[in-house]
């Protein structure tokens, strides 16, 4: 029975990993920016969920509704006011910029929230259910469904909405998009805002699963990075495939090797993929 338990755990965690990664993947794919603040956005989302629950008793499910617009505006303004100024510079410049912004945000969080690990524990606890002889906590299950829903929502936004089509168009051919009358810089801001909103929501959900501390931001960033490489850049389905694969390898691997090797395993997987299949599971070859 341990196998079904490992598989179910991997599916649950995989959807959360996908949710962590899609915002990162969107920004990377559309803006060609490796957004190093992404991990800190996730942590900030967790603190938001923690704070709302502790002070106002608002459950994390509703915190998502607060987090999404808040983080969208934060991301939009960051891109519009700061990153758009250097967006046409080489990738190292935007990387340095997001690195600096991450230092500021992360240290601000350490200053205000301290570096202690906190945990959002629902009271009363929601208990757990048995799925195919495997035990799954209900709060995790709901978090998974919410993560899947957010992923699906992004897919629909990109496919069905006018602004979504423009985001995809800018990613595929910037000059042609300009000829369609697309204002590239405001599309960049929208894409960055969406990435931030997804990070914030992922943070809210991760608060139920992970201990909360500013120090975990690099872990989240690392996961997002690995998922993007595994799944292939810039596609929603790729992030989902990459997330589940990463969680599966971590789950099965740590069952045999012990949980202390989870991160090592994920980065070994990253290196293997970079050598064998650099375009990722679902990515297209020869596409930047």
């Amino acid at each position: 029975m341990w196998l079904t338990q490992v598989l179910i755990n991997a599916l649950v965690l995989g959807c959360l990993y996908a949710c962590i990664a899609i915002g990162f993947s969107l920004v990377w794919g559309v803006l060609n920016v490796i957004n190093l603040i992404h991990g800190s956005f996730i942590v900030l989302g967790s603190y938001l969920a923690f704070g709302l629950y502790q002070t106002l008793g608002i459950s994390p499910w509703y915190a998502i509704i607060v987090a999404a617009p808040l983080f969208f505006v934060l991301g939009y303004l960051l891109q519009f006011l700061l990153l758009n100024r250097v967006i046409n510079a080489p990738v190292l410049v935007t990387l340095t910029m997001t690195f600096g912004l991450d230092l500021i945000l992360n240290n601000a969080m350490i200053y205000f929230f301290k570096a202690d690990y906190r945990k959002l524990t629902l009271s009363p606890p929601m208990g757990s259910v048995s799925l195919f002889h495997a035990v799954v906590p209900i709060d995790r299950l709901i978090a998974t469904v919410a993560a899947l829903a957010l992923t699906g929502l992004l897919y629909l936004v990109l496919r069905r909405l006018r602004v979504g089509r423009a985001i995809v168009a800018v990613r595929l051919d910037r000059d042609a998009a300009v000829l369609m009358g697309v204002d590239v810089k405001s599309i960049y801001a929208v894409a960055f805002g969406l990435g931030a909103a997804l990070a914030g929501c992922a943070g809210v959900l991760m608060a139920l699963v992970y201990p909360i501390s500013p120090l975990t931001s690099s872990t989240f960033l690392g996961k997002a990075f690995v998922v993007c490489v595994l799944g292939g850049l810039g596609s929603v389905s790729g992030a989902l495939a990459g997330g589940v694969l990463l969680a599966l390898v971590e789950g099965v691997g740590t069952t045999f090797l012990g949980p202390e090797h989870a991160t090592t395993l994920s980065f070994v997987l990253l290196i293997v993929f970079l050598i064998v299949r650099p375009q990722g599971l679902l990515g297209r070859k020869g596409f930047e």
Partner: protein
Amino acid sequence: MSDSLIIELQQLCAGYGEVQVLWGVDMKVRQGEITALIGSNGAGKTTLMRVLSGLIPVQSGHYFADGRDVAGDTAAELLARGVVHVPEGRRLFGAMSIEDNLLMGAYSRKVSRAELGRDLDSVYGTFPKLRERRNQAAATLSGGEQQMCAIGRGLMSAPRLLMIDELSLGLSPLLVEQLVAALRALNAKGMSILLVEQDVTTALDICHSAYVMDMGRIVRTGPGAELLADPIIREAYLGVLED
């Protein structure tokens, strides 16, 4: 300035950074006409298209659209004036469906869903092949279908002037004939067209007036039929040696 002029250029200069490509271009595009721009590779035709659609700035000289100075306008502003550019190499959004490509053409227009539907229908009426494959990714189309999709995307922008860069590039003569017929039909309905072509015979055959470009300057101009009969043009661009 006559009100039948949709575009007028006076001594227009432009280029890329330090490299000047256009050296004082004078040109008039009349309302309701097909105007052809011909010339060899590297003559500056595509650069001129990019200036007209606002992708690269005017360095000096004048660019009038409908009699107004539009030299500093952005691509979006020129598009709103109805100056629509179908770029060289089609530049479709390959991973998107045909219909999504067409809808991107209408991106900057504020129109109702119903009107969008009518415009889609009219493009599908012009190019029935596109309707059959509306949900297929644009990258999977043949060269001719891609050109139809690119022109269709241009039509969705509600052009007053449709500028097509290299209509026939890489297409079979039969396909070129079909596309030319479609352009003639659009022109008969009143649409102005600026056609950039390397296939000089086709271009001079369908245009009302033509401009010949060389080394970033306009070197000849006149009605298409007149240029087609011109021995110098025939020798330089059609490879015909006169006795």
